[in-house]
């Protein structure tokens, strides 16, 4: 749309369709209305529920401090939208500008926003995944089912994968007084996201709270009894474990299958878009009528070498949705780049873990304040002589300072003295991230190449 009045027509009476009715989709819709879009707005979501918040599901909800069906997101404003909930989008016709739905319906659009997010990666063996007692945790329904089982006090819970979600689940189970084993393929929890130095602290937290933490092992099989109930797990070190519940926490898979063959640059790594949230097609040409936001998007970030970042972060979903919605109904000169500084939080074992920047880019880490041994510290990550990220364990008030250092490409190690610096923080040490050529362990940030059409993902088999 150019300056010929068609943009005005779009804003007044255009048709905008948002596929994906969760956090990003909702905030995008609100932003469109806030910015004066008065045309028709349709939100399509495969889950039956109106947009709800997911982070509480592995925290407050598991602890019984909130109920799974009461995490609906507060609205910022009235939307005047048509909701198509409980029906998945199954296809996209880019030239006819229509979204195909699972019920056979087709929804035409002038502008399309894709916020289909991710889903929990299921246990890879389908028959074992169907055993009674095997869970994932991503949706409200998942949380209701898992909660019901945990309330029945299983003798032992096995958490498969010690990323953030897995660690939070283990933490909640311990708080509920349940016996927990955590099986992690990597050398420590959280290594994919925060590296081995911080991972060691995470491992100490698990063990100090009574988790039976087993690193460097994989779960090779889940065994059921004749009634189809989970009763045992087999590990790659040859041992077996009697368990009644297993929670599969192996990261997430992007919801892009519905776009296969559509011509959009979508694949297992998400949907590539430019810094203005416009999606690329498979030819590497940017579209001007399809926008992407949230977990499913991957977009180049100037602060991080223009790498395409996929950020499964709550804050990113909101910020990117707002930018995408703004850009969708504005002329190109008025558009904004998505320049959000990655940030996330994860409370576990009574410790508040927070981070800014992209830790997994870090080559070295310096403990700038506090102490690893006390589980209360600020770690600063360096990449090619500049500050690239920071993580805090119960020191959140300092993060803003480090965010500023990241934004200004401050030198690493950071200049000046900080309060509470201990001997261990005098010089940086290797951040100790896993070899990137091996499969990762569910980091919340994945980095990939420049080509939006490169869908060839080769996974190196894990060394069990």
């Amino acid at each position, binding site marked *: 749309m150019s300056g010929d009045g068609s943009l005005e027509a779009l804003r007044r009476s255009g048709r905008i369709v948002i596929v994906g009715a969760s956090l990003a989709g909702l905030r995008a819709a609100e932003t469109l209305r806030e910015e004066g879009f008065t045309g028709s707005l349709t939100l399509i979501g495969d889950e039956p529920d109106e947009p709800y918040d997911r982070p509480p599901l592995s925290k*407050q909800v598991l602890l019984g401090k909130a109920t799974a069906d009461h995490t609906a997101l*507060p*609205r*910022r*404003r009235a939307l005047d939208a048509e*909701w198509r909930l409980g029906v998945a989008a199954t296809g996209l016709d880019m030239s006819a500008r229509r979204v195909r739905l699972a019920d056979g319906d087709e929804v035409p659009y002038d502008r399309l926003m894709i916020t289909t997010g991710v889903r929990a990666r299921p246990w890879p063996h389908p028959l074992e995944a169907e055993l009674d007692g095997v869970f994932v945790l991503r949706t409200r329904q998942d949380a209701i089912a898992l909660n019901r089982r945990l309330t029945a006090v299983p003798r032992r819970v096995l958490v498969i994968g010690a990323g953030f979600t897995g660690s939070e689940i283990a933490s909640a189970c311990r708080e509920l007084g349940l016996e927990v084993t955590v099986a992690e393929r990597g050398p420590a929890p959280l290594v994919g996201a925060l590296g081995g130095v911080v991972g060691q602290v995470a491992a100490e937290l698990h063990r100090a709270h009574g988790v039976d933490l087993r690193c460097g092992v994989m779960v090779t099989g889940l065994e059921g009894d004749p009634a189809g109930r989970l009763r045992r797990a087999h590990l790659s070190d040859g041992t077996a474990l009697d368990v009644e519940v297993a929670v599969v926490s192996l990261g997430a898979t992007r919801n892009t299958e519905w776009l296969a063959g559509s011509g959009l640059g979508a694949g297992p790594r998400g949907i590539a878009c430019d810094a203005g949230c416009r999606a690329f097609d498979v030819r590497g040409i940017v579209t001007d009528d399809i926008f992407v936001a949230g977990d499913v998007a991957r977009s180049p970030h100037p602060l991080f070498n223009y790498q395409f970042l996929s950020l499964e972060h709550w804050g990113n979903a909101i910020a990117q949705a707002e930018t995408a919605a703004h850009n969708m109904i504005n002329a190109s000169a008025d558009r904004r780049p998505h320049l959000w500084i990655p940030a996330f939080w994860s409370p576990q074992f009574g410790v508040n873990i927070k981070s800014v920047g992209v830790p997994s880019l870090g080559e070295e880490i310096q403990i700038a304040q506090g102490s690893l041994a006390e589980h209360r510290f600020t770690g600063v990550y360096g990449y090619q002589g500049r500050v690239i990220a920071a993580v805090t364990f119960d020191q959140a008030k300092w993060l803003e300072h480090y965010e500023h250092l990241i934004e200004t490409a401050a030198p690493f190690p950071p200049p000046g003295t900080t309060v509470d610096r201990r001997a261990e923080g005098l010089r940086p040490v290797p951040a100790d991230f896993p070899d990137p050529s091996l499969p990762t362990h569910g980091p919340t940030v994945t980095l990939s190449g420049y080509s939006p059409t490169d869908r060839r993902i080769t996974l190196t088999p894990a060394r069990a």
Partner: protein
Amino acid sequence: MRIVVDLNRCQGYAQCAFLAPDVFTMHGEEALLYNPYADDTQRENVARAAAACPVQAILVEDLEGAAGAAGHPERAEPTGVR
């Protein structure tokens, strides 16, 4: 009444936990645990907590008792703060 806290913004000042202890609690030294749904008896407390938050991280819908069609996706205009 629906509540969401931007925990990227939250710095653990715990003002909310003093003003609306039935909805917001500290978990450990710094992590905030809150109930994303509070009933009407908490309206006053939650309003005070949201107003007192030093980093304005608490978003509340229907704070002024605006009529929202419960259970239906279309909600009334919220008057909460961000």
